[in-house]
């Protein structure tokens, strides 16, 4: 649901507000202490078919999902080892019939709960039940500011209207609301209107998240890649809105790394302050990590504790810290700033997760990647490959894939 989690570390200190001690250097969080926040992908099932979905191309079927009791046990264990926040995500987390029960259990064991949802399956009663179960925050994804673009991107008719309705219920129930807008070439022209939509919906936060290109988004890169001109315009619009809406709407902006010179500090560093639990219970350094072949990710169904997997498993330790880095990273003065960028992107674009992320200008592949992005942005077709369990369906005129 939330490709932004790649970049927007779910918990981060902000030196400016004087409240950053938890994540300061050499703190527990820095030295592989238990993460403050964990993303629980309850299911890969989803009524939407967004072409940039952050789920792996090989989706997990419903039958392999953890049971209600297994998730409850996981939530209890997370709280016991010191995790503070749980983000319920997917797929669509409300596709699980036990979502209210899981939120209630998370509240009972003291976790701060966040629901990252497409909203299209929610009724007012269900949302009320979630609020009563202690839900702390709702994040709803939007694909545009009006139905023509938004429903086409989502691959679902009437999705946009439904989302607006659920967003209004969220505020009526006095739940805080974040609008998550995933941006790409085919909706960036709506950005100013999307910002206004978030204000009109009385949202507390807006995430303006440029698509991150792995998995489904990589398949759809030619249809999604923005132009350099669009990116410059985006930055201008966001900066203007941040000033104008101070105290009204907080805006988090995720820049697309294809047009950057330095790579993003992906997940705050591999296995450094975050993990993700897949629908079948695998503990992953990020939601896209399973795209890297050759790494063995352990599951909560193994005979190891979650804390043991986090601290000791080979997959987490493989790219931790800086010792694994090849040149040009190893001697780079920024190596502890960006930790070499994104391992999934390095794997997707170079075939080796241990290489420098090509988003970095020091990568030998950077120039080529940038050229590809420019070419795709100007010459790529607009047709989507919709995300589904069949490995994707090409968009046909007027139809939304499935």
């Amino acid at each position: 649901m939330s490709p932004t989690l790649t970049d927007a570390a779910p918990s981060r200190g902000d030196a400016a507000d004087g409240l950053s001690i938890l994540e300061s250097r050499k703190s527990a969080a820095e030295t592989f202490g238990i993460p403050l926040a964990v993303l629980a992908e309850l299911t890969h099932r989803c009524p939407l078919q967004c072409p940039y979905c952050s789920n792996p191309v090989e989706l997990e079927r419903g039958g392999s999902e953890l049971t209600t009791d297994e998730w409850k046990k996981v939530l209890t264990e997370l709280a016991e080892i010191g995790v503070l926040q749980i983000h319920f995500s997917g797929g669509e987390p409300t596709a699980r019939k036990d979502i209210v029960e899981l939120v209630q259990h998370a509240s009972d064991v003291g976790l701060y709960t966040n629901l990252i949802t497409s909203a299209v399956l929610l009724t007012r009663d269900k949302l009320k039940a979630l609020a009563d179960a202690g839900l702390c925050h709702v994040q709803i994804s939007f694909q545009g500011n009006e139905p023509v673009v938004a429903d086409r991107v989502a691959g679902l008719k009437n999705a946009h209207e439904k989302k607006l309705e659920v967003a209004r219920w969220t505020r009526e129930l006095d739940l805080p609301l974040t609008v998550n807008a995933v941006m790409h070439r085919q909706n960036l022209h709506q950005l100013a209107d999307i910002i206004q939509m978030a204000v009109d919906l009385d949202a507390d936060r807006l995430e303006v998240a440029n698509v991150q290109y792995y998995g489904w988004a990589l398949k759809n890169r030619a249809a999604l890649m923005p132009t350099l001109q669009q990116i410059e315009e985006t930055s201008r619009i966001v900066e203007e809105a941040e000033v104008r809406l101070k105290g009204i709407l907080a805006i988090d902006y995720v820049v697309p790394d294809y047009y950057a010179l330095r790579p993003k500090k992906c997940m705050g560093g591999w296995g450094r302050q975050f993990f993700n639990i897949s629908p079948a219970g695998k503990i992953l350094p990020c939601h896209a990590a399973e795209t890297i072949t050759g790494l063995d990710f352990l599951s909560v169904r193994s005979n190891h504790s979650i804390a043991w997997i986090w601290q000791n498993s080979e997959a987490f330790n493989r790219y931790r810290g800086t010792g694994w880095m090849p040149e040009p990273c190893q001697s780079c003065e920024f190596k502890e700033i960006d930790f070499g960028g994104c391992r999934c992107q390095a794997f997707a674009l170079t075939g080796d997760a241990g290489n420098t992320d090509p988003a970095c200008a020091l990568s030998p592949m950077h120039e080529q990647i940038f050229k590809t992005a420019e070419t795709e942005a100007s010459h790529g077709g607009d047709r989507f490959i919709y995300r589904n369990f069949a490995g994707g369906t090409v968009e046909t005129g007027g139809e939304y894939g499935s």
Partner: protein
Amino acid sequence: MAARTRNISVTGTSRPLLPRHAKLRFDDTRQRWVILAPERVLAPDDIAVEVLQLCDGDRDVDQMVDLLAAKYVADRAAIASDVIAMLQDLADKGFLVEAREASA
């Protein structure tokens, strides 16, 4: 209780409290106070924790300053300006709302 959440200007008569999405709690594992908020965890310092614990939506800022000035036998004006600056900063970031009477 209705709460105002947008464009708050903190003054002596404000009655601030944490919004539903910001939870102040003690983290047993790390042995310190934290504020849990959407997509972030904040670690307030000891003074901020003390001020935030006084923010119940009932007390106004003047009363909070009185309590702190008495407790620390400190200059009231200096405490007032520090407390208001800290609360304003939190309010601007969306981590503070202002209680007000429900309109009749």
